[in-house]
Structure formats: structure tokens, C-alpha cells
């Protein structure tokens, strides 16, 4: 398991409310995800990248700057999407009844490290993801 996957794995395994996390390129390809048995990851990745793009377009249109977080509340759960700078997007699926503040804190605490790992990966890989 690489560093990115273990970061996501830690997030999911330490918080029973979090059902899954998928880190994707803005072109819609999965970079890392957890848990390992998450299904339909490729299509989820394309949709997460689309949500991140749409949010960025919407907030730009109304001069609100870059979006920090997207929250979708559905009948059976919630979905959070984060722009990881201009490199990637992170989708996090949770149960519906969460103490939102606590979960958000956990995710936000993880983001800087995710960013560092991602940048390292790009540098080691010598270019795009």
C-alpha cells in the first residue's frame, strides 16, 4: 500500500461514519482509494472530478473564488468533495447521521499531508499524475 492509500485507509478505518474515500485526478482517473473493496471506483472518480470542476466553475461565475468544499446530502448518506489545489479532487462518502464538524475536521487535517504526498509523487514520477 502506498502512502496516499494508507492515508485514505487511516481516515476510513478510524471513522466508522466514513464509508469510502477516493482521490482522483482532475481528468477523472482514480489515484488512490479506500477501503480496498470499494466498487465502481473508475466511474466514481470521473463523477468526483466533474463535481469538483462544476463547483469551481460555479463559484468563479459568481466571483466567490475557489471552492473549498462541496457537500451533497442524499437520502442515505453524504458526499464531500474537496479540490486538492489544482492537482486533484478528493471524494469522501459518509453515512447520513454524522457529527459533521468532527468528520470535516478529520478530513481537513489530512488534506495538507495528502497534498504533500501528491506533490512528492508527481516529482518522483517526473510530471503529471
Amino acid at each position: 500500500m502506498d502512502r496516499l492509500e494508507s492515508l485514505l485507509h487511516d481516515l476510513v478505518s478510524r471513522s466508522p461514519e466514513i464509508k469510502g474515500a477516493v482521490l482522483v485526478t482532475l481528468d477523472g482517473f482514480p489515484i488512490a482509494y479506500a477501503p480496498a473493496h470499494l466498487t465502481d471506483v473508475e466511474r466514481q472518480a470521473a463523477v468526483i472530478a466533474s463535481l469538483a470542476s462544476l463547483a469551481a466553475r460555479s463559484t468563479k461565475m459568481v466571483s466567490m473564488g475557489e471552492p473549498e468544499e462541496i457537500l451533497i446530502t442524499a437520502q442515505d448518506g453524504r458526499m464531500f468533495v474537496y479540490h486538492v489545489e489544482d492537482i486533484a479532487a478528493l471524494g469522501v462518502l459518509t453515512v447520513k447521521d454524522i457529527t459533521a464538524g468532527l468528520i470535516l475536521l478529520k478530513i481537513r487535517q489530512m488534506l495538507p499531508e495528502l497534498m504533500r504526498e501528491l506533490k512528492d509523487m508527481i516529482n518522483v514520477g517526473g510530471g503529471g499524475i
Partner: protein
Amino acid sequence: MKDHRQVLRDFEAISGPIEPYAEVLKRYADRLKEWDEFFAKAFYDTLFSYGPTASVFREGERPEREEALKVWYRKVVSGEYDDAFWDWQFRKVGLSHVVRGIPNEFMLSAMSLVQRVFFHKVLEAFPSDEAVRIYGAFKHVTDAIATLIAAGYMYSYLDAVSESTGMSLKLIERHAILVARREYGKD
């Protein structure tokens, strides 16, 4: 959006250069231009006799459309093509139809009609070996135009989706691949 030069470069690399065919048309241009009237009539008789294409036109628009098609036809058979000619095919002829909501399949079917009408006319007017040469030239040039129209149509849709949603063209392509994989049963 790819520009008309890139689309043409790809067309010529795959299907062959246009210039030799343009030379053939130039030699016969005076005769071929005489058919403009006949050509425009045959074209619009067909489009006006089929509900889905007829409904695109506004009341009283036909004379203007016929004139525009005559100009287009004469220019095509002249064999004189510069950059402005190809840009006109891509932007005006291609995109002016997108503005009117005319789908690509109508455009490509209409180009097939253009080629068929020309084929019959040329067979009537010339000995068969000359007719084959002239038709081959006309077909190659109008195939290049059809390619520009089809590409302009697709790229203008993709650009619209990309511009309005913020999704990159690569991301849209990714969605297309994932859906095609599912439809094609390769998932």
C-alpha cells in the same frame, strides 16, 4: 477546439492530399459551375420534402438558402481553395448549422445527397473515364468539407459542455470512454 488547419492536416494524411483533385476541378470548372441552379433545386427539393429537415427552415427562406448553396457549389467546383475557403467551411458552413440546431447526421446525409446528385449529372455530361476522374475529385473535396463539418459540430458541443461545466475536454473524454466501455460490454 482543433482549428480547420489541424482537421485538414489529419484528413490529408489519412485520405490523401487535396491539391491534385483541386487541379482536376479547375480544368472543368466552367462547365461544372453551369449546374449551380439545377444543383440547388435538387438539394432543397429533398430537404423541403422531408418533415424533420423542412421544419428547420423559416417561412420564405428558400430563395436565400438556394442562393447561398449556389455560391457554395460554384466555389467548391472552382478548385480554388485558400485558407479562407476552409475556414468558411468549418466556421460558417459548419457552425451556422449548429446555431440552427441541425444535427450532424442531417449534414452528412445531405453531403451524400450532394455527391449523388453530382455523380448522376457528371455521368450524363461526360464520357465515363472523364466522369470518374471529375467525380473522384469532387468526392475528395466534399469529403474534406464533410470532415470539417463533422469535427466542427463535435468540438463546438464539447467546448460548450467544457465551458459551461468547467470540465476539461480530457475529463469529458474520460466519461465518453467509460460509457462506451459499458455499452460495448468491455466493463
